[in-house]
């Protein structure tokens, strides 16, 4: 009993100590963070890592002492950068001789992007006060109460309980002591809960659900609208910059040099606005810009041609091409129009914030505030200022009006702001979409480019495939058939003279024919697996699963069969995924699910491997991606380091009439 309370008090004091240490750490962090803003990044990260033990300790102690469990919220540390095959370390598009700098940058990004880092900062600073107060309260009450007991004797000549009759002081002191002791465990729990408030795992951004409170929701919307209005100002500035550069470069002949880069850089702003529209309307706005011009190829004489000029190097041609590219892209001009017009239109989403501010701070607050000011600070209060007089007519901007009008008008303005804000934002978003979305022509141009690329890749792949088949046949079955013919010829000669030798030769021929057949079988399997032709995709995937060394589970079914090329692409996609899971992912289990939603075939493969797969690095995966692109299909790999790897293959296709189902349901 006594022990419980004394332990609680001691722990509270320890928490207070931790809070003070945290405050010092927090101040150190502030000092260490400052140089980052002038580009010196060497101080912040080590201090963050060095001070993390404080919030960590707080979490651990909250769990142990306050029985408030707080799991560590930190994102896992990044894996150290490993040297590439040539011994250099790669960070983005930069190569480094030594690993420490890319590693430092990686950790810097990790620390900076983790929201827990910033909550730790906040905790250190805020807990410096809150935690100290909470922690010291019981001890302080006990101590002060103790002085109450001896207050009648006025120790140290200090009136500890000034204003209290001396006889009561011991009573109050006793009460304080009891209160201090009894409150200690409660305050310890409070300490833990307070820590949890700041130090717990939060849902990552993006997973946040929409707030359900209407008022909070609308308030946020108003704030959002005000923030969005910044696009107007920024757009106007950018428009001016573009205009000046355009005009000046036009007269100095520097346009191809400076104008295209500026246009490209300027696209950042409309792109940001597009992302906002996506947030507001929930629909993606496709990239409206024409695809970049390809790099120029030299003429047979080695020169590069731009219009009627020939150049020795590609530079001028590239600049010319890019100039033509931005000039002919209608999206460029639509962007500029948006920048200019949006200056005015962006006032729309800003309006609610203005209304709410005017209503609240211009009308409602003064209605309370002025009489109060007058009451407290006017040495000679005007006789009119009593509570009932709030309702009397007053001089306002709109002439003399009843006093209550101020209140009603202010409230009405604020409410109006709250009511119209979503509508205004919607109008704003639609206006943005009108100018920022790609035009029909831009969409078509994009489509043509995609089709051209995928067609070229498909025909390349097909040619390569045919070459491979030709080579395999030439080196394999064809050669074996020649050998068989030779051996049979020899056997023909020998058959009368040396029947035993002839027999041996015929046996050899049989052997060779077996080998030739096996090779043909493998070749056929690579072109179009027989089981796929015989049974369709699902059973073919089942057959793949059976042959795999992994534990593969195949679920789902298709109501019919896709067209043969699509089926084949899907099959080889799954085959590649299986091979990768076996070879690279160190997976044991792979789940494959197939379905068709009426428009597209969807195959999802999930393994339990170590992740980190990147289609860019796998030539096989790249090949499959290309093959899928021919059918407008997508091949998405989601493979965080540490796993699991999830591959989603989607192929738009129709299904032919259902075939009788197979007898096999289980694998």
């Amino acid at each position, binding site marked *: 009993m006594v022990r419980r309370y004394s332990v609680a008090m001691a722990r509270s004091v320890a928490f207070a100590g931790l809070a003070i240490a945290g405050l010092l750490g927090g101040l150190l962090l502030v000092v260490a963070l400052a140089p980052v803003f002038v580009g010196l990044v060497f101080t912040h990260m080590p201090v963050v890592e060095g001070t993390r033990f404080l919030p960590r300790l707080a979490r651990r102690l909250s769990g142990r002492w306050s029985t408030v469990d707080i799991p560590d919220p930190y994102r896992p540390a990044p894996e150290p950068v490993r040297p590439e095959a040539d011994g250099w370390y790669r960070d983005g598009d930069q190569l480094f001789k030594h690993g420490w700098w890319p590693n430092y940058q990686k950790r810097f990004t990790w620390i900076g992007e983790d929201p827990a880092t910033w909550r730790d900062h906040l905790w250190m600073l805020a807990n410096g006060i809150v935690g100290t107060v909470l922690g010291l309260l019981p001890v302080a009450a006990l101590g002060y109460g103790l002085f109450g007991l001896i207050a009648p004797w006025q120790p140290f000549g200090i009136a500890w309980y000034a204003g209290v009759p001396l006889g009561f002081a011991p009573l109050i002191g006793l009460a304080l002591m009891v209160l201090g002791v009894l409150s200690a465990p409660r305050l310890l729990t409070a300490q833990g809960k307070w820590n949890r408030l700041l130090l717990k795992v939060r849902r990552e951004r993006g997973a946040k659900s929409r707030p359900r409170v209407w008022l909070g929701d609308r308030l946020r919307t108003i704030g959002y609208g005000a923030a969005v209005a910044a696009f107007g100002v920024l757009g106007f500035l950018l428009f001016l910059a573009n205009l000046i550069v355009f005009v000046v470069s036009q007269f100095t002949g520097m346009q191809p040099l400076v104008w295209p880069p500026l246009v490209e850089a300027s696209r950042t702003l409309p792109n940001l606005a597009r992302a906002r529209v996506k947030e507001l309307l929930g629909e993606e706005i496709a990239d409206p810009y024409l695809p970049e011009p390809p790099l120029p190829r030299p003429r047979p004489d080695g020169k590069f041609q731009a219009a009627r000029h020939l150049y020795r190097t590609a530079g001028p041609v590239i600049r010319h091409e890019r100039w033509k590219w931005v000039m002919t892209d209608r999206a460029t001009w639509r962007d500029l129009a948006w920048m200019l017009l949006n200056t005015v239109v962006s006032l729309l989403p800003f309006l609610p914030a203005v209304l709410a501010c005017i209503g609240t701070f211009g009308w409602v607050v003064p209605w309370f505030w002025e009489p109060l000011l007058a009451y407290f600070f006017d040495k000679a209060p005007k006789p009119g200022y009593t509570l009932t007089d709030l309702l009397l007519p007053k001089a306002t901007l709109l002439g003399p009006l009843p006093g209550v009008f101020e209140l009603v008008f202010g409230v009405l303005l604020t409410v109006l702001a709250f009511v119209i804000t979503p509508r205004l934002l919607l109008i704003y978003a639609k206006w943005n979409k009108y100018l920022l979305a790609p035009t029909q022509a831009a969409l078509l141009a994009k489509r043509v480019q995609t089709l051209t690329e995928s067609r070229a890749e498909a025909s390349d792949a097909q040619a390569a495939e045919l070459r491979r088949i030709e080579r395999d046949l030439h080196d394999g079955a064809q050669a074996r058939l020649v050998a068989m013919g030779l051996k049979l010829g020899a056997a023909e000669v020998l058959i009368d003279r040396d029947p035993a030798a002839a027999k041996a030769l015929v046996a050899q021929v*049989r052997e060779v*024919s*077996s080998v030739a*057949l*096996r090779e043909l*079988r493998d070749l*056929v*399997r690579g072109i179009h697996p*027989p*089981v796929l*032709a*015989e*049974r369709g995709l699902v*059973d073919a995937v*089942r*057959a793949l699963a*059976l*042959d*795999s*060394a992994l534990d593969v589970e195949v679920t789902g079914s298709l109501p019919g069969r896709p067209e043969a090329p699509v089926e084949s692409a899907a099959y080889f996609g799954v085959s590649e995924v299986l091979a990768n899971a076996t070879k690279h992912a160190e997976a044991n289990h792979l789940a494959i699910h197939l379905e068709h939603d009426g428009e597209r075939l969807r195959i999802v493969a999930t393994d339990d491997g170590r992740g980190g797969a990147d289609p860019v690095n796998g030539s096989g995966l790249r090949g499959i991606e290309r093959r899928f692109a021919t059918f407008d299909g997508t091949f998405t790999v989601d493979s965080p380091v540490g796993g699991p790897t999830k591959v989603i293959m989607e192929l738009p296709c129709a299904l032919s009439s259902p075939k009788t189902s197979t*007898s*096999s349901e289980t*694998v």
Partner: protein
Amino acid sequence: MRVVLAEDLYLLRDGLTHLLQAHGFEIVAAVESGPELQHALTEHRPDVAVVDVRLPPTFTDEGLQAALSARREVPGLPVLVLSQHVEQLYARELLADGTGAIGYLLKDRVFNADQFVDAVRRVAGGGTVMDPEVISKLLASNARDEPLGKLTEREREVLEQMAEGRSNAAIAQRLFISEGAIGKHTASIFTKLGLAPSDDDNRRVLAVLAYLNGTAPH
């Protein structure tokens, strides 16, 4: 011994007919399409059917489907399936009913007439004959599965031979060990796979099934 033969390529059908007749089989029907096969199987009730997987009219797995549906009607009807390629998937479907008398071979195996005829006889006699290629694929994919993982290297070899349809004597000859030792190995395999002592032939089929499924038999 009465045989129904289904093969769409004339040359191969003719060749098989001669081969089987030469070895004392009676060909009661040699057909070239799925529906004909279905009809012949139910009408003639042969001692063994030799069936190609891919047959007209769809050129998919007509032969296999016809064989499976005939075996549903006549349980235990001996069928030897021939194919240009072997799939574990098909092997499992053929073995699924657990009645034995099933063979599944690559067409290449026809080259060795003696072995092929032997296989036909074993299937007709209720045995199970799986192509070595099926077996080797299984070995590759089921290497670490329970309970087969409990078998010793030698026992796996014996089981592999068993799956190819060989008798204890034939296995002994192949592995160069005594028939008695093979008997011990098979007994040990049965115990490890949890097969109660009963009709020995049935247990052999079940063991092979377990082997093919990579799991314990029920």
